């Protein structure tokens, strides 16, 4: 099976090499594509040195636009399975096995590594936990399926999910809206418990005053997304 690892990275010079190495250590047959979201540091060169394909965006698109670039590449090149791993090293590729098996075994179209579904604790600030819980409840309500971690970017996708996201993927903070989109398109989502590491370098893109903006924007997006019938890819319009 033709598999690809999609790694979005923004100013992750210090972490990206290790992430690429770990993916190859998990499965050397995978292609690894790093989407450099217009980093100011040596992220691209570092990723290339470690054997990854590198797509360098001409300007910063944000996580959604960056990840979608990877989905487009995967869709164009006939990949049947895609894994998504963040470039900051907080996802441990050695935990991918159960996620990959869930998707390749046909039990789901997309499998998300969740910090909350199992017993493994996840340390985080109180406000962030509450925010994540509110989003998870809303998504669970809208999709009629229990979803525990709507903000996890640690995912495995099959061809159907790759094609959907290549055609239409939410922009700023994509995972929450994507969960609703999947439901609309009748793709099956599963969650598997994972541990996530502390960030090695850098900070979450969601913090401080951004949290309020993030919550408002995402709630608006998922509520309207729930009313929307289908994805309407711009290019087909």
């Amino acid at each position, binding site marked *: 099976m*033709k598999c690809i690892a999609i790694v979005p990275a923004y100013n992750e010079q210090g972490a990206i090499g290790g992430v690429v190495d770990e993916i190859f250590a998990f499965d050397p047959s995978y292609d690894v594509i790093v989407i450099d979201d217009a980093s100011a540091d040596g992220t691209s060169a570092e990723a290339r040195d470690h*054997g990854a394909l*590198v797509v360098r965006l001409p*300007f910063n698109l944000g996580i959604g636009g960056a990840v979608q*670039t990877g989905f487009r*590449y995967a869709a*164009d*090149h*006939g990949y049947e399975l895609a894994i998504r791993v963040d470039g900051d090293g907080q996802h441990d590729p050695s935990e991918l096995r159960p996620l990959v098996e869930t998707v390749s075994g046909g039990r789901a179209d997309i499998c998300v590594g969740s910090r909350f579904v199992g017993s493994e604790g996840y340390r985080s600030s109180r406000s962030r936990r509450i925010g994540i819980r509110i989003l998870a409840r809303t998504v669970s309500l809208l999709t009629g399926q229990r979803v525990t971690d709507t903000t996890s970017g640690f995912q495995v996708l099959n061809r159907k999910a790759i094609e959907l996201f290549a055609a239409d993927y939410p922009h700023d903070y994509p995972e929450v809206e994507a969960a609703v989109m999947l439901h609309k398109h009748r793709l099956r989502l599963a969650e598997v418990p994972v541990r996530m590491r502390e960030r090695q370098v850098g900070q979450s893109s969601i913090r401080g005053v951004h949290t309020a903006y993030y919550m408002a924007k995402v709630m608006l997006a998922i509520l309207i997304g729930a009313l929307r019938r289908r994805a309407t890819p711009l290019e087909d319009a």
Partner: protein
Amino acid sequence: MIAAGQTPLTVSLAASAASLLLLLIVFELIRSRRLRERYALLWLLTGLVLLALSAWRGGLNTIAGWLGVETYPPAVLFAVALLFVLAVLLHYATVLSRVSDQNVILAQRLALLELELSAPRTAKEPAAAAGPETTTQ
């Protein structure tokens, strides 16, 4: 019911002149290709409606009467002008959203094309040669 107020003549003249000026500026911008027709339509409509309401004094007074604006009919002019400005702004917000979506797609396509051009495949090619590549357009 109280009779509707009257629009002062000077107000009608000044408002008509301002509406005409707006129309002239919009026409000039289209003529010199600084404004595309599709984005000028709302502006032209704004200018025409405001000109009509300014010049047609009886009409403005009557409409003000309908709306219950009894003392100062030109207030209706402000309200109509404000509504049109809101419409134009909202229209621009949709245009801006579309342009930024297209911009994202362009950036993604450009970046993917650059990858195809610069490094067709890396040294990892043999491991991944499971099947023929589907060609992109």
